[in-house]
Every structure is written in C-alpha cells, then in structure tokens.
C-alpha cells in the first residue's frame, strides 16, 4: 500500500493572493485542502488602544488606515458615532458631501475588488481597467481633500473641506461616463466561460450559515438575505434616495461577483440623485464645541461599508478621549467563515473563495 503524506503549506503572509499580510496554514492532500487555519495579526497596530489616548479628531486618520480601500466610510462611522453621542446637528451640505464621497468610495472599492479578484483568477487586464477608472475617483477625492487614499476628510460635525468650484460637475460627469464603463466591465469579463466555470458554485453557503457567521455586505446578500443598512437602518440621508438592494440566490462566488457589480450601479443611482439635490450654499461644519467631549455614555453605530457592516462602539466617560473604542470590522467578521468554506476545495479555489469574501487586511488586523 502506498503511504501518502499530507502537505502542510503556509499560504502567506507573503503571498500575492492573500491581499496583504494574511496567512492560511493549509493541509493539502494532493491539491485538496483538508484543513485550513487562518493566522492574522501581522498588521495589528492596536488602533483601539492608540485611540484611548487620542482625542476624537486625532482618531479620524487612524480610521483611514483600517480599511484603506474604503477610508471614507471608516471616517464616517467614527464621526457619526461621536455626533450621535453628542446629539450634534450636521449641516445639510456637509451631509450631502459625506454621502457623495461615501458612494464614490463604494464604487472605487468595488472596482479594486473587481480588478484584483479577476487578477486572482488569472485575468490580467481587468485589474488595469478598474484601476484606470478608480484613478478618476481618486482624482476627485484629491481635489476635494488633498489625499488619494487616506483622506482624513470628515470631522465631528461636518466635513473638513467644502467642494471646490466645479467639483460637483466633475462628479456628475464621472457618474455619467461610469455607466458605460460598467457595461464595458460586464462585456469584458462577466460572460467569460472560463470565469464562469471558475466561480459558479464555488464557495457556496446558505443564508442560515451566513447569518450564523455574522456575514454582512455582499457576502450576506448573495444568499438572498435582503439586508442593507442603508435601507434597513437608514443613516445619513439614504432614506431620501431611491435605490435597490440587489440580492443573490446561490450564495456562491458568482453571485457575489454580480452583486458587487450591481451595487456599483446602485451607487451611481444614489449619486445621480444626490448630485441633483445637492444644496447650493450652506455650511460644511456644524456648531461644535472647541473641544469635542461627548457626554458619558456609550453608543454603537453601524453603517454599510463596501465590505459589510462596519460598526463603531464607543464608551465615553465624558472626556476628550474615548474610554474604549471598538470597531466592528466587516472583513474580520466575514473572514471567519473561510476555514469552513475551504475544506474539500482545491488550492485554486482557495484563491477564488478568499478573493470572493473581499477582505482588506488593514481592517482584519486593525
């Protein structure tokens, strides 16, 4: 009888498809995974600990560095939590600006996902197509706040910078052209037989599992659960706009793929309406005390980031610094289902499934 040995393979922390310093210890039987153990923490910077010694304005740049692909939504969840705790009023123009940058960010983030996911699957070009268009969003952000990745744009009570002249028109122009681009993306990749054979039916789970594992975002909606915090627990101005929450049926990587593309379209829809209703004048900062010192109490707010439910839990003891700040990071929570999904899959599907979950390591490790 031939004796076979299991191969223990360290995928990561330096591996092109783990999207950062993430490591999975896989036991391979041939190319079939029999056990997968995720190891993380390589990018753990102790944001929550650092925050305990910083005032709230100082924490905002740290949130940029959590989910660095979607820094605007991270900014928002923090300032939103503080504002809610303090009961602050936000000027409408500021809130509109926030919503616009958040939706632009969602489009940009999904583009990064789309490009890198197809790169994981072996297609080179979509990556550059996506980044080419994302570049335009980064340009817009750059004009708005002078940064391309870590924006530090929002403040408790409003936003740091008003939109420069003509910025809104540029965003309108972008949104107009982006519809065509999404068509192009679809034509370029979505119907590709090889792609379909790679992602259809791969990494599938049912709604019950998804809920039990606390998945959120497209990972949850791909199973058919219609749960989008922008609709179900509206924050900001989302209740003013019309948009659909796309859901999948099979909960596989293909559904997640289609969902994210569709979410981009819905974001563009929101953007169109928001740009149409954008108030002419007005303040971009509300009335905020010089030192931001939320009253003693605690609060948990959550918003829909491109990756799912990002939450911020603050315990305040009435100081300028939070007593305890905890982020619910969607990447971290979504990733928990990975070991379960990987068992019995091949090495190639590891990449497909991991990519489909859409994680950002800055957020997993925080």
């Amino acid at each position, binding site marked *: 009888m031939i004796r076979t040995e299991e191969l223990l393979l360290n995928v990561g922390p330096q591996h092109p498809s783990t999207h950062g310093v993430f490591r999975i210890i896989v036991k391979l039987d041939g190319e079939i995974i029999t056990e997968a153990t995720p190891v993380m*923490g390589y990018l753990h910077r102790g944001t*929550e*600990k650092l925050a305990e010694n910083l005032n709230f304005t100082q924490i905002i740049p740290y949130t940029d560095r959590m989910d660095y692909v979607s820094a605007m939504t991270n900014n928002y969840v923090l300032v939103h939590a503080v504002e809610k705790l303090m*009961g602050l009023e936000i000027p409408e123009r500021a809130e509109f600006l926030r919503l616009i940058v958040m939706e632009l960010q969602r489009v940009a983030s999904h583009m990064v996902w789309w490009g890198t996911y197809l790169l994981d699957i072996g297609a080179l070009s979509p990556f550059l197509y996506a980044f080419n268009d994302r570049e335009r969003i980064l340009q817009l952000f750059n004009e708005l706040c002078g940064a391309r990745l870590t924006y530090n744009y929002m403040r408790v009570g409003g936003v740091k910078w008003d939109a420069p002249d003509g910025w809104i028109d540029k965003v309108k122009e972008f949104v107009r052209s982006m519809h065509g681009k999404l068509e192009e993306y679809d034509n370029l990749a979505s119907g590709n037989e090889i792609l379909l054979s790679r992602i259809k039916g791969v990494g599938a789970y049912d709604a019950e599992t998804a809920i039990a594992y606390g998945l959120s975002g497209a990972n949850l909606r791909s199973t058919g659960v219609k749960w989008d915090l922008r609709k179900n627990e509206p924050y900001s101005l989302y209740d003013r706009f019309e948009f659909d929450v796309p859901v999948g049926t099979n909960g596989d990587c293909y559904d997640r793929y289609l969902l994210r593309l569709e979410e981009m379209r819905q974001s563009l829809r929101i953007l169109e309406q928001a740009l149409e209703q954008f108030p002419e004048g007005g303040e971009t900062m509300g009335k905020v005390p010089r030192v931001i010192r939320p009253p003693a*109490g605690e609060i948990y707010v959550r918003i829909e980031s491109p990756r799912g439910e990002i939450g911020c839990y603050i315990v305040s003891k009435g100081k300028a610094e939070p007593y*305890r700040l905890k982020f619910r990071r969607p990447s971290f929570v979504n990733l928990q289902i990975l070991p379960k999904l990987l068992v019995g899959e091949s090495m190639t599907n590891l990449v497909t499934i991991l990519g489909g979950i859409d994680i950002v390591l800055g957020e997993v490790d925080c």
Partner: protein
Amino acid sequence: MSGEDRREESAKLNETKGEERRETEEEAPTEGSAGTSAEGAGTTPTDAPAEGDNREDVPSAEADSGAAGAGADPNGRKPEGEEQASAPKQVQAAAEPKTGPVDAKQAAEGEPAAPPAKAAEEAAAPAASSAGGEAPVRRQETDEEKAARRKAALEAREAAKAAAAQGAARPEAAGGAAAAGRNPAAAAGRAAPAAADAPPPPPSPNQPRLDRAAQLLRELVNEDAVEEASINEPNDHLPTLVIKRDRWQACAGLFRSHPELNIDYLRNVAGVDHETHMEVIYHLLSLDSGHNYAVKVRTDRESPSVPSVTPIWPTANWNEREIYDLLGIDFPGHPDLRRIMMPDDWVGHPLRKDYAPLDPEV
C-alpha cells in the same frame, strides 16, 4: 526605594502572567511606599484606597508613578478613577488621626527633605478637601507632577460637570453611567440628585420591548438573570440589559431560540475594562424583526471569565478570541481560545487599562 527601583520592580512584574501581574501590581505601590512611609497602606483592605494612600501621603511614591508614567506604572487608569477611589481613604485618614502622624514620621525618615509637621498637615489636607473629590496641589513637587495633578483634577471636575449636565438632560444615561461605573463615583453620584429634579421624560418607544425581554429572561431562565435593564437613549433607544454572568449562557440560548426574540445575528462583541470590573457587550440583532438589543455581562478583573456564546452564534468565535487576546477575559466553552492579534508568546493583554508593555521600547 527610588524611582529606578520601582520601575525595575514593575518590569519584573510584567514578566508574570496577566492575572498574576494584576495581583502583584496591587502590591507594588505598597512596596514602593513601605520604604518611605505608610505601613497603613499594607493593611488597607482594598486596592484602590491603598493607592489613594500613596498618592496623598507619599510624595516620593507619587513621583515614581509620575515619572514611570508612560512605561512601568499602571498609569492607564484614569485620573478620575483615582480621585474617586482616593476619597474614602482620605476620609478614613481624617477619621484616624493616628495614621497621619505615623505616615508623616516615616515619610520624614525616608525623605529628609520633608519636615514631619508639614507631612502631617498634608495627610490631613486631602481629607478636608475630599468632599470636592479633588486633590489640592501642594509642596515640593516637580513641575511635571504638578502639571499631571492639575490635569487630573481638571479632568475630574469636567467629568463631573459633564455628567451632571447630561444627568439633567437624560436621567437614564446618567443612571446608566452610574451603574456602569458601579464604583462610588463621586461625579455620577452628584449627577443623580440633579437628574431627580428634572421632570420625568416620556417613556422610550422601546421600553415595552426591553421590559418584555427582561420579563422573558426572568421567567424562562431565572429570576436573577437580569441585573439591570435600561434604554440607551442616544443610541436609537437601544434596549440594554445587564445579565448575570452565571446565567448568560442560558440567556443567550433563549435570545437565539425564543420565537419572540429570535436573535439570529450577533453584530458585535466588545470587551471593556472598567478598572473596577470587566464587561463584555454583545450587540444583538434579529434580522426578521430588525430589533436590536445590547447585552452586557460583567465579570471581575482578577480572573475574568464569561461563558462563550460561540456554540450559539459562530460569529462570536474570533470576537471572543480577540477579547481574550486584548483584554484577557476567559471564555469557557470556546472551541479554540488562542491569541488572534498578538503573537502567541506575548505577555499581557494590551487593552487593559493597567497594561504596561514588557519592553517599554516596543
């Protein structure tokens, strides 16, 4: 004992495991003070007054804690807490005139710079001012010390003011804060009467839901399952329940399975070190009804442990690992409780308020 020694002491202590370290740290100030003054500190029943003792009576020990600040001393504690904690002991010091002179004498022996009479005066001084919950600045302190003390005092005052202001506006919140503290917080205590004066606010829309949940838990699990139930008003009237630790597993099961509650989604698990106790907060959600609940489970700091809910909500798995890693709370029943963020050989739990890094350079 000089500041140098104390820092070394602390560094050594940090090498021990988390729980052990916590214990030894309680002794640390005592040791630090034994050379210079208060034997009374050694006999004080609880940790906090001992500390207060040191702070008020022994300038040298205080200098240590000030100097060691960032590194060795468990200085993560909020000054506010110290102030409050020190208050009872100050009263005690005033009531027992015997300890005052003894301290003063020993202080004089340990530190010739301080004349005995003056030291005695100081021992009494804080007692006099303890009602204010604020330590006056006195005598030959270095500038740093003074600055630190002044800041602490200022913050304490502000906290009290904020709490009072909030208490007037939102009685629940203030009550919640007082409950959350569970220590005899001077600030919250003063806020309470102010809250009592305000007219009763309209009941929260979620009050019935909270009552029903508490009722269910009391009926179906145990009468003592729910320790407190309140509405967190700024947070969208979030029904917040404090569950007795021993009953938590049964309560979690009920939350998950009871058709009326039907909590199928665990949003977030957070651990908080309240210095007097540890707390684990679960944010629960029912996807069907959209109902939110926050559940708190309290545990002591010495050997914190909360039953794991991973068998009920698999989401809790990594969250509990993270809390175990960063706060050192044990979760009996967890399938695989290991460190998740920090390296496996890390010493200590960074998010604890008294965490001091093993190697201050890192």
